């Protein structure tokens, strides 16, 4: 006997589909709530979950008929997004059973992400699951599957350390700052110049609870504007030396052709700072900070190439961690399959019990009218026992005696002896 429902996954991601297709197929927050309900309403679909991010769309479902379900999901995606199915069918992947489970585990553990090990995807799947749970589009199988998915993802994160180290320049800068200062709470940041990467780094630092941002820009107005964005204060370019006395982290990204901060300047600043550590992050090319400054005590200078070197090493580490993660996924898939197969057993047992109960209740009702056993003659009880045995064993006996057993009669006999423990030495 097989399960009534199969697990089916249809989706596309950054590897199989270009961004033009992904932006057509994707759902925004409200859309995806409605889409989830619409999917659930499809005839061939029993339980369903919809994950939609900028890098992937995944429809995870259980279905009694996976071919019909696949067809319905594809045409739903096509109608919903007003795009002919032929345009994106080639970008879709489709997994069933174990493969669908494995895919789900890998996606949640960020083994399938563009940046392997990035942490956002797990949150997005949790969000999708929360929607499915509140809208009651998920049931026994998907609840269990998602529950396991979160456990696997968490286990991979803690055991392989896949997300431990930064793989982007601005995160690497934050990680270094933490290794220098420990806690970033209350650390002051000075931004010299402007630029996407530098501003991103400032944002990361603020998110890590650094405070009081100073902004120095050659155009004071631009500095004021930036400072407002970070809730900070603008200073004039000539005030940088004074600013260095109070800040802890300096991010520099100007278009200057020569060094903005020189060694002697830094040395004087350190004396006035009473040697409190100072960390320069130099994102500019050509460089803003004299690299010689790195040789002074308690000052650390990282330029863009240094940061790249750091993340390259981290990327290699993540790849090693990912290999380990795949092994954990394999284990989890096997365990899930065992649970999934055990699902077959439950309805069988329930059915058996129901059948026996019906037979016994009917016989007892006949022997003791009114439900009372008082005044029932002994031979009436004997009769009832005989009738019970006959009725309960009627179907098994007929099947065992049946001549058209397709060559599996021996199996059937063995199973029967085992099920009812007719041979003493049998164990489970």
């Amino acid at each position, binding site marked *: 006997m097989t399960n009534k429902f199969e697990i089916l996954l249809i989706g596309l991601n950054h590897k199989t589909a270009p961004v033009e297709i992904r932006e057509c197929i994707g759902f925004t927050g409200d859309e995806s709530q409605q889409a989830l309900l619409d999917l659930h309403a499809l005839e061939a679909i029993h339980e369903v979950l919809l994950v939609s991010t900028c890098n992937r769309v995944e429809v995870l479902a259980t279905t009694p008929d996976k071919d019909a379900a696949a067809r319905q999901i594809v045409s739903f995606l096509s109608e919903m997004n007003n795009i002919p199915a032929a345009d994106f069918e080639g970008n879709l992947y489709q997994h069933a059973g174990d493969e669908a489970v494995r895919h789900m585990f890998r996606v949640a553990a960020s083994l399938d992400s563009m940046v392997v090990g990035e942490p956002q995807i797990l949150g997005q799947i949790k969000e999708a699951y929360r929607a499915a749970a509140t809208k009651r589009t998920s049931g026994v199988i998907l609840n269990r599957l998602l529950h396991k998915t979160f456990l696997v993802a968490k286990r991979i994160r803690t055991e392989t350390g896949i997300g431990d180290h930064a793989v982007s320049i601005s995160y690497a800068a934050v990680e270094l700052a933490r290794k220098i200062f420990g806690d970033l709470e209350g650390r002051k940041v000075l931004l010299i110049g402007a630029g996407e990467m530098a501003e991103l780094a400032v944002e990361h630092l603020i998110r890590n609870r650094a405070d009081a941002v100073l902004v120095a820009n050659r155009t004071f107005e631009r500095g004021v504007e930036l400072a407002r964005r970070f809730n900070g204060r603008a200073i004039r370019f000539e005030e940088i030396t004074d600013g260095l006395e109070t800040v802890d982290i300096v991010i520099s990204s100007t278009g200057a052709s020569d060094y903005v901060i020189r060694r002697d300047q830094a040395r004087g600043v350190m004396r006035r700072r*009473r040697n409190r550590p100072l960390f320069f992050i130099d994102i500019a090319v050509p460089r803003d900070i004299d690299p010689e400054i790195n040789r002074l005590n308690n000052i650390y200078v990282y330029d863009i190439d240094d940061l790249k070197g750091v993340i390259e090493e981290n990327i290699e580490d993540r790849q090693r961690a990912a290999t380990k993660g795949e092994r954990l996924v394999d284990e989890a898939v096997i365990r899930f399959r065992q649970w999934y197969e055990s699902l077959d057993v439950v309805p069988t047992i329930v059915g058996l019990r129901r059948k026996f109960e019906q037979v016994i209740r009917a016989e007892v009702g006949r022997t003791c009218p009114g439900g009372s056993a008082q005044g029932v003659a002994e031979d009436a009880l004997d009769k009832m026992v005989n009738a019970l045995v006959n009725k309960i064993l009627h179907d098994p006996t007929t099947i065992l005696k049946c001549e058209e057993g397709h060559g599996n009669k021996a199996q059937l006999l063995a199973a029967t002896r085992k099920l009812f423990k007719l041979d003493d030495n049998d164990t489970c």
Partner: protein
Amino acid sequence: MDIGILGTLGLYSLSTVAYVVFLFMQKKGMHRYGVWLLVAGFVIHSLSIGYWTFMSGHIPVNTLRDTLSFAAWAVAGVFLLFHHRYRLKIMGIFAAPLATVIMAVVATMPVTTMAAKPMLKSIWLVAHVTFIFVGEAGLALACGLGVLYLTQEKAIKSKKPGFFFRRLPSLGQLDTAGYGCILGGFLMMTLGLIMGVVYAKAIWGRFWSWDPKEVWSGITWLLYAAMIHMRLSVGWQGRRSAIMAILGFATVLFTFLGVNLFLSGHHGEFTR
């Protein structure tokens, strides 16, 4: 005492193994084993020292063997306190092996008994020795933190974060904890020296007798006092503080062992 020593040595060694495994594998459970094995070792060690103090009627510090054992006890105890205060997991990688090595040396030394002298029974002496040793254990930890600081600093300055960069705490934490150890150690050492001076007055009739150990203790004390002063006045922190912690402890070691081995004086008889 031998069973106590061997039991202690065994537990300290296991704790060291746990810490080494923790350093490489980064499994939190290993770190917990490390701590609890060290706690167990420390308890047995304390019982053993307590037993011998009770049996002989004086604190066991009259042979080099006993003194070293006492030093290892102080290192383990101060580390456990420190661990409680600063939560720098990795620090055990320094303290546990240090206690283990000292105990290994102790275990190989022959047991020599000496007639208990009445001078050993003074409460002043017990206090003097205990404070000094606890203080020196704190300074030993500061030295270990200094080494870790320099290792981490090298990883950051050379821009090749690797094995240690990931495993060691931040420079800020190492520096703060190191300074804490120096302050605590210095305070204990100061108290211990005061006890010693008072005790000297009581039995020899003078506070200070230019004995080599006294002179070197004075030098050590001045060195640490200067270190703390420079940190407070002109900000000797970070790298310089780490180097000073290591140099300072080298002086401590010389005062503790070198003076007894190379110079003579009235402390000599305790460690021969």
